[in-house]
Structure formats: C-alpha cells, structure tokens
C-alpha cells in the first residue's frame, strides 16, 4: 500500500500524539491537530487523503467540522472517532458523508484497515473525475 496523508483531529493530547507516532511507524504521512478549527486551517494549506476526526471536542465539534470538510474537500474521506456510542451523531455523521464511524478504543490494525479503505475510495472517486 502506498503512503498516504492522514490528519488526526483529537483534543486528547495523549491519544493524538500516540496514534500519530504509531501511524508514522506504519509508514503513513500522519499529522495531528487538537481542534476542528485547526484542522480546517491545516487542510487549507495541505491536501490530506484521510481525516480521523473526534466527534466530541470543545469549540467546533466533530459534526460541524465534518460538515465544513465535506463542503470544501468533498473527496477527502473522514473517519469519525467517538469515545462513546451515540446513535444520533452516528446517523448525522453518515448522512453528512462520513466514511465510517469508529468507537474508541479501536485496535490500530482495525483503524488502519478502515483508513486504507477510505483512501482506496478517494482514489476511485478521483479516477471518476
């Protein structure tokens, strides 16, 4: 699998820093930011293939950020991360075009698998346009 660019958006520093480190260890080009606002700023400067986005964050929440991301970068695939299962936000997220919904804690291999699928989907869609 080729290297692709991943943005991890989560306000929990420990979680974010560790996951970015581990993704880099799996040969992914991973970056971490702590908020939705920061994510949008970073995405305006660099292209990302896949975003892993926490649902519950102070300030702009995951759903708001997802809305904005899909509006501005419709081809970038977004995987929603959630600490607790919320059906409501799950349905909202899927309707807004999230690629998948993953509950924390998630085994890295499982998350990686979803990221690869998300990246594959992005490439299929890019091929269409």
């Amino acid at each position: 699998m080729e290297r692709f660019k991943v943005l991890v958006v989560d306000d929990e520093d420990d979680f974010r820093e560790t996951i970015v480190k581990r993704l880099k260890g799996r040969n992914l080009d991973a970056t971490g930011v702590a908020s939705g606002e920061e994510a949008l700023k970073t995405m305006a400067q660099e292209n990302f293939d896949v975003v892993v986005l926490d649902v519950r964050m102070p300030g702009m929440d995951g759903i708001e950020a997802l809305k904005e991301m899909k509006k501005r970068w419709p081809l970038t695939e977004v995987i929603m991360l959630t600490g607790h299962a919320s059906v409501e936000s799950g349905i909202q997220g899927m309707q807004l075009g999230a690629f998948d919904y993953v509950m924390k804690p998630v085994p890295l291999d499982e998350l990686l698998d979803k990221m690869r699928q998300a990246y594959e989907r992005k490439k299929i869609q890019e091929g269409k346009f």
Partner: protein
Amino acid sequence: MPSTRPSGSERWWLPWLAPTLTLAAGLIFWGAGEQFLAGAAVGLSALGFYGVHSLRARLAQAEAARQLMDERLLTTQKLAAIGELAAGISHEINNPLAIIRQEAEWLEELLKGARFQDQAQLLEFRESLQEIILAVERAREVTGKVLELARERQPVIQKLDLNRLLEDMARLVEHEARKKNIVIERRFALDLPPVESDGPLLRQAVLNLLTNAYQAIEDRGTITLTSSWAGPDHVKIAIRDTGVGIPPEMLDKIFLPFFTTKPPGTGTGLGLAITQTIIHRLGGTLSVASQPKHGTTFTIVLPLSWEPQEQRA
C-alpha cells in the same frame, strides 16, 4: 353532438342491451303467435343477457387492473414530482434558515454587552434565542433529509466485509439499546465472500434500520441481526425486532416520504424512504414483514457484485 364519448362511458349502452333484445324478441314472436318460437327467443335473449353479463364482469376486471396500474404509475410519478418540488422548496428554505440562525447568534453576541434592569428578563431573552436556534436546526434536519432523498448519489463500489460492517453498526446502537434493556443478537453467516457495494451508503441504511428497530421496542426486547446467503449471487441482511409491529394497513405506506407514526417533531418520516432509495441505488431490494405486537423484520437483499444501473432519465 360529437359522436365520440369519453372512454369511461363507452359502454353506457351495455346495461340496456339485454332487456331491449328481450323486449324486441318478445314483440316479434308475440306477433307471430308461435309459442315455441317465443320460448326459444326468451331462452336466447337470456343467453344473450348471460353473455353480456360475463362480458361486463371481464371488462370490469380489466378496468380495475388498468386502474391499479395507473395508480401505481401515478404514485411513482407523483412521488418523483413531489420529491423534486420538496427538494426545490428545501433549497429555498435553507437560505432564510441560515439567515435566521445567523441573526439569532448575532443577537446572542449583542446580548453579552446589553444591560437589563431585570435579570430574569435577560434569562428569558437568552432562552428564547436558544429556542429559535433549536427550531432552525430542526427545520434544517428536515430540509437536509429531503435534499438527500432527491440527490442522485452514484455509489462508489469497493469490496466490503459485510459482517464487519454489520458488527460496527450494531456496536454503535448497542450502547443506547442497552439502556432500554435491548439485546442485539448477531447471527452472521461466516462463509460470505466480500460484497461489492458502497460502504458509507450501506452503513447509513443499516444504521437507519437498526435505529428503527430499537425505537420500535418500548422496553426489553431483542434485535436480531442476521447475514446469510440469498441464492448463489446475493446476500441477505435481516434486522428483526421484538417491538410493537406495524399494522397491516400501514405496511405499504411506511416507505412513503413523510409517513411517520412517531409524534410530531420526533420523526421526519424520511428515514425509511431514504433507506429504500439507498438500497435501490445499491442494486438491492428492501422488504418488510410485520406482526403487530410481535415485531418487525426488514430484509435487505444485495447482489454480490454490483453493476451500474441504467441512468435514470
């Protein structure tokens, strides 16, 4: 007078045919005075009457069948037209909604610097603004769903692990289900090959059905999530609940947009319509079976390999 009549009344003379024939035959044979012939004539006209009668019955049958087809066609066309209209309206409504929200938020900002003699009045002001914003959100949810229903999203096809997908969605609902003492039972066929489908769309459909299932159960019950083969090149997903069930007279209406049994304000009546649209787009079918007080089963049948459907005009 034009000689052509509207097609509906072409057979206006039918009811009169038999009695007229009988009368005419009677008059002719009464004149001839032949008892035997008269009897035969009466028999003949009775036979004629019977023939006309069965003809009428068959015509009525054909007419009913035609009406049913017309109605179905009309329903499809009506739905498409309503969908288009609703999408257009939704789009137009979204703009003022955005303005209302924006202005309400701006008022909230202004309120921070405002002075009130009475603290209670300030609180009331704030609450009122919150209500406005909440109502805007509710309206946006409806318009968003209507637009989604009308949107022709082409599926992006990937090979999916169906059981994995079902498991993920089950987990998402499980937490909330447990609060109502609902158990989610999995019955997955372990020999299913990867399915060519659109992951996000299928997840949305399954999640919608799972949500319906747990909403149908008031307290304590089971949702059974099944995956299985459906013939050599199809798979089946069944979502069964032990909930309130759907009365038979409502079964054919539940997929209609805006049909809901939930109290006003809690359901948009679009969930099942959207789910059905998604499944059709994936080349599959969605069906329902229900027994009031015992529960409902929704069944999705999907092709293992996906082929692009003809573009709809």
